[in-house]
């Protein structure tokens, strides 16, 4: 055998290569997510991950039953929170399972490390799932390219760096994997794959609220196929299996419960399920009715049923039988909605509409490969391609209205970019037989036509390829090998050599056809030069892409936000660790049942790191409670003191950036607090009172009285002017410091190294029954 290397046939070599490449892609995917661990440490990032981490610890320490029934009285004091019933347990259960499995084989890892490295590990799985998805819709080349893209695409890395222990970390893998299984079950019409899709969907439901995207997109795909007149038994089997098992399974998650039966988000799936039953019935009926009558009948019925169903849905929603869409969903349609009606959603930066540069920032060249991929999908337009097109259009829309949804766009962009790139590769990397191609084209055409019977069309590049393979004896052998494998389900597949196959073949074989032709060097040059130029350009772009991704990952997405870093004047690396300093101070030096009041952003971190009771946290389920905290911050000292004592508050924590110039501090968030408080207490808090006479948001001596008297202002600037001297300057607001800030009802308990976190103790009532103002004057 000429092309045996290491005793392996070409096909085996190719599969070995694919595995090796996938392995390397996985390594790169994991490796590029470790910047934060190398720069900082193995630490949980940001806000929500701290909640997930804390619940995972609880699960590991107390077992599943206790976790499931956990009522957390240290959150939302005095209301508490039913944790087990208000979270998606997927990520915690996954980590705990990994943790227990490792401990079972005597690898006593720390649960924190399991949590920190979970997202990178799952990104490797995502790459593998994406490979399969790409292979499902085109071929292994596209799959490998898509896997390579998703491995490093910043849009996905932003949510899956080591330490970013959030639902999205595993959910994106599940999203891609569910879609892969769905496409395969549609292609094969296999109930097994339908059931697997449902199981994967169940896992997704347990892991992330974004499962709603799946349960709307798959029905949409089905509906689109029905509308295109592409009903088949395969589709029927796949969807029916998936919907029944998937829905029943999803209802096992307490947080989801019976929602699939009465909320608007799930109605499309239910409607489509009903529709496909009707269509199936119709197609059965088709065997009894003449063909030409039937088509018109069917289409009419489908459309009218859709209209009837939709209007029924609207009616039911309006009459209140079906729960209306939640606020977050409304803000997906109308980007201005949240700002007016639900300030708490609008106050989160990741819920803002996406700025256009963000797409390029997060996806780089993939974003312009996306339309190319859509074009190629249209040119083939199998059932799978319909799905890709729908997915890309909807994800693109959602990504443009909400920044964080770039995350769901990223997988489809990678897959379609992989498809587009694979076409480019197939066309321009085919160097074997440049002159021969033209001559042999005529001969090849019948084969091509035969092949295109199964798929709707084939692009020229592939047909070129096919032609050569059919005429080339060595390739013929290779094809036999493939046929031997029986890897063809349809003609399309048979004529698609993977790039790995191609590479293996070309490298092990002398270019026989070219030498036969004996073309002049110039002709060869003309044939090869454009390919060379195009490939150089694309290789350059690919390198730039990789470089861009690494750069973005390292500069933008690898900061834990719990630990900050800066450069000293001499270029030295400075770690700013004020948050943990404050949290650890609280953890060690306050009584265990102490209640800490802070803005909700820091709730999860306080619970996780300081281990103290909080009034509000990032769960934001109770707007009134959050508004109360906002009111305390916005009130004058005496009102705030009364309210704070009323809520059993022992400590108040504020984040203050004026010393360092940290712009994400509480004074900058203060207007949102005021707005949210005003929404609930319109008589007590008024936003306009916090602007000074010039209508500016000032903090220095020219600030409005409400501003100067507010608790937030006092807690932030108390004693600060003393240390800055007379010429004090707020480095965030670029304003002069207020000169006299008095504070009687609260007492400084701790201030961190760089003044970033300030903790105040709520004073006990005066022994002699005086007010604290009187006591301090005395």
């Amino acid at each position: 055998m000429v092309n045996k290397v290491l005793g392996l046939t070409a096909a085996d070599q190719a599969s070995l290569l694919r595995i090796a490449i996938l392995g390397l892609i996985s390594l790169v995917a994991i490796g590029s997510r470790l910047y934060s661990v190398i720069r900082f440490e193995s630490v949980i990032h940001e806000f929500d991950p701290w909640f997930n981490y804390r619940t995972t610890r609880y699960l590991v320490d107390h077992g599943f039953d206790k976790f499931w029934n956990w009522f957390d009285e240290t959150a939302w004091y005095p209301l508490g929170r039913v944790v087990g019933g208000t979270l998606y347990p997927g990520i915690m259960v996954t980590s705990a399972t990994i943790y227990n499995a490792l401990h079972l084989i005597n690898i006593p890892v720390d649960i924190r490390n399991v949590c920190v490295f979970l997202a990178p590990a799952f990104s490797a799985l995502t790459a593998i799932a994406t490979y399969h998805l790409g292979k499902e819709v085109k071929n292994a080349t596209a799959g490998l390219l898509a896997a390579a893209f998703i491995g490093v695409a910043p849009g996905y890395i932003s949510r899956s760096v080591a330490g970013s222990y959030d639902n999205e970390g595993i959910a994106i893998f599940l999203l891609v994997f569910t879609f892969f299984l769905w496409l395969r079950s549609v292609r094969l019409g296999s109930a097994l794959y339908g059931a697997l899709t449902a199981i994967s969907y169940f896992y997704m439901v347990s892991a992330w609220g974004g499962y709603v995207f799946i349960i709307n997109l798959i029905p949409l795909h089905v509906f689109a196929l029905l509308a295109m007149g592409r009903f088949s038994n395969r589709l029927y089997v796949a969807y029916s299996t998936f919907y029944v098992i998937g829905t029943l399974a999803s209802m096992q998650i307490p947080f989801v419960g019976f929602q699939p039966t009465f909320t608007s988000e799930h109605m499309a799936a239910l409607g489509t399920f009903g529709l496909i039953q009707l269509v199936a019935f119709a197609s059965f009926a088709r065997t009894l009715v003449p063909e030409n009558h039937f088509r018109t009948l069917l289409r009419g019925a489908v459309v009218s049923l859709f209209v009837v169903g939709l209007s029924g849905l609207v009616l039911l929603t309006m009459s209140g039988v079906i729960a209306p869409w939640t606020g977050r969903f409304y803000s997906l349609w109308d980007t201005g909605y949240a700002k007016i009606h639900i300030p708490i959603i609008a106050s989160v930066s990741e819920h803002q509409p996406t700025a256009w540069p963000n797409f390029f920032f997060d996806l780089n060249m993939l974003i312009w490969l996306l339309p190319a991929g859509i074009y190629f999908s249209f040119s083939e337009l199998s059932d799978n391609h319909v799905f890709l097109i729908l997915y890309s259009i909807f994800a693109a829309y959602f990504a443009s209205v909400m920044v964080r949804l770039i995350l769901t766009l990223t997988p489809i962009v990678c897959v379609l970019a992989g498809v587009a790139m694979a076409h480019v590769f197939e066309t321009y990397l085919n160097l074997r037989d440049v002159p021969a191609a033209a001559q042999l084209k005529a001969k090849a055409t019948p084969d091509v036509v035969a092949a295109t019977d199964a798929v709707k069309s084939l692009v020229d590049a592939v047909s070129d390829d096919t032609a050569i393979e059919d005429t080339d004896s060595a390739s013929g052998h290779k094809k036999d090998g493939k046929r031997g494998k029986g890897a063809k389900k349809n003609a399309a597949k048979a004529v698609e050599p993977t790039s790995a196959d191609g590479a293996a073949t070309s490298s092990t074989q002398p270019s026989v056809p070219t030498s036969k032709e004996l073309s002049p060097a110039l002709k060869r040059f003309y044939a090869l030069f454009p390919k060379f130029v195009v490939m150089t350009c694309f290789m350059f772009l690919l390198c730039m892409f990789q470089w861009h991704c690494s750069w973005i990952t390292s500069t933008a997405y690898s900061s834990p936000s719990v630990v900050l870093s800066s450069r000293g004047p001499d270029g030295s690396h400075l770690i700013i660790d004020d948050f943990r300093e404050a949290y650890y101070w609280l953890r060690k030096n306050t009584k265990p049942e102490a209640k800490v009041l802070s803005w909700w952003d820091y709730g999860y971190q306080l619970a996780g790191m300081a281990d103290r009771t909080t009034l509000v946290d990032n769960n934001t389920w109770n707007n009134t409670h959050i508004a109360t905290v906002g009111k305390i911050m916005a009130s004058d000292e005496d009102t705030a003191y009364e309210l704070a004592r009323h809520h059993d508050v022992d400590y108040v924590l504020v984040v203050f950036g004026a010393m360092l110039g940290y712009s994400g501090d509480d004074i900058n968030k203060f207007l949102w607090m005021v707005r949210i408080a005003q929404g609930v207490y319109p008589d007590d808090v008024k936003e306009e009172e916090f602007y000074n006479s010039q209508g500016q948001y000032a903090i220095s001596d020219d600030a409005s009285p409400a501003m100067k008297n507010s608790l937030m202002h006092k807690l932030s600037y108390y004693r600060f002017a003393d240390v800055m001297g007379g010429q004090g300057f707020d480095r965030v607001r670029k304003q002069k410091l207020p000169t006299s800030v008095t504070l009687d009802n609260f007492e400084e308990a701790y201030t961190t190294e760089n003044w970033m976190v300030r903790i105040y103790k709520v004073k006990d009532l005066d022994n002699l029954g005086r007010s604290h103002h009187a006591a301090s004057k005395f």
Partner: protein
Amino acid sequence: MMQRLLRDCCNFNAVLRLALVLCICLSALGAKAKSSSSSGLVNTNVIRTVDLQGLPFAREQVGVVVQNEHSSKVYKTYTVSVPLDKALWLSQLSVHERKSGEELQVTKVPVTEGSLQQLFQVTLRSGGLQPGEKLSLNIDALFVGGLAEPRPKAAKQYDDQVWHWEDHALALSVYPTRKQKTVVKTRGDILRFTKTAGDATMDGRKKVVFGPYTGQEEEEGRRVEVSFRDNAEQVEAMTHRREYFVSHWADDLNVLEHYAIRNSGPEIEGGFNKVEQMLSKHYKRRDNLVKTLLVKVPADARNMYFVDEIGNVSTSDVSKRRRQPSANGGDELFKVLQLQPRYPLAGGWNYTWWHGYSVPLHRYLKVSTATDSTQQQNRHLLRLPFIGSLAATASLENELTLAMANAQNTAVRAYELRVTLPEGAHDIDVQLPATISGEKNLELRPTKYYFDSIGRTVVVITHENIAPELAARHILVSYSYAPSALWMKPLVVAGALFALFMMASIVSRLQYGLAATPETTNKLSAAAKKQGLKKE
């Protein structure tokens, strides 16, 4: 807790010897009843020296002349009494015969219900104390705190720390005492002391003498106090755990130290003041905040880390190699870890953390090559420091001095030592430092660590109230370890991987479908390979 502490004190049996009263306990009645019941022995003269110069460690040295006034009875033992509240802090109690300097055996007596005293029985020399005979004894008790407390309880960050010692004027004894006096020595200047009777005199600025007292009756129940300035840092380690991990493979001895400490100094009056702290830093003015924790580690320590419950602490440093004469002759080479807690420790503030490092194992391990049949072959002998040192400093200087690192200012209340031996070590024998009585607080615990198959043994020793003396002692652990045991772990791992591949290989050859197609076989084998690669 108290019972645990007391039980622990029992463990000093081997070291403790003779008896006398250290203090008058709260119940003067009890003392009176006792004194009448044992009329035979009489303390003719007692000089009690309370040494507060090394706070938080405090020493009470009681020199007593005891006389047998009984007509015929021979006394073989002498009883020492320590009030329970002080016994909680007691680290060691030793009794010497003054003339010969010989150490006498001390046995702890279980506390009877309702009693407020902890009694120790001291066995006198052979023959006991004959009628009419006199004997001079030195009773030496070491406490890890509890004798002095900051007063006022709260002071400004930069104020001097004022400490307050208070005790009964008369030393507690189960025997009648004819004449006694108490000497209190302090590190800083004495500010105030009780002078009611006019029998208290100051000797220099750092020493007060109370007494002599003779007529017991009117003195009973009277308390004397001394207030003095002492700005030295005082830290209490509520718990301290030191762990050794022995790895023969890597020739590595991993040391891990857990600490939970508390600054025993006065609390801050009116809450923490950041501005004051910054000004102190700027003007290099002293304050009471503990800023750095110094740990001496061997000079060849590497891979050092400093972590607390929520992650790495980035503020730490390690000094260059230092040299100083060691206690047991020769030079000691070491480095100093300079650990800065996340926040400075004001009085009453707590901090919990752990740090660790690696040292080459061969410096601590000896392998006996004895070939005679009685001696087991491959006997390994580990000689490890019983406890490390920790010094807290409030210094604002960037350069920390050796004196700061040598300062003995951390009192350990509950100590645990763990030595994790390699997998396959057996016939374990532990020899504790002479100051610790064994058995009861020594435990061999099985555990499983990375890639273990049969597990390994951890030697766990617990001890309470550790005084600096123990720091210089060593613990000896000997065990048998066959050379073949070294290969167990790689074999187990290789075997497990092999089994995994075998399984993958078998699974890939199975056919699940009703109609077997070559496609499924190929796909499965590819999947199995991939799985194999992933597992690796």
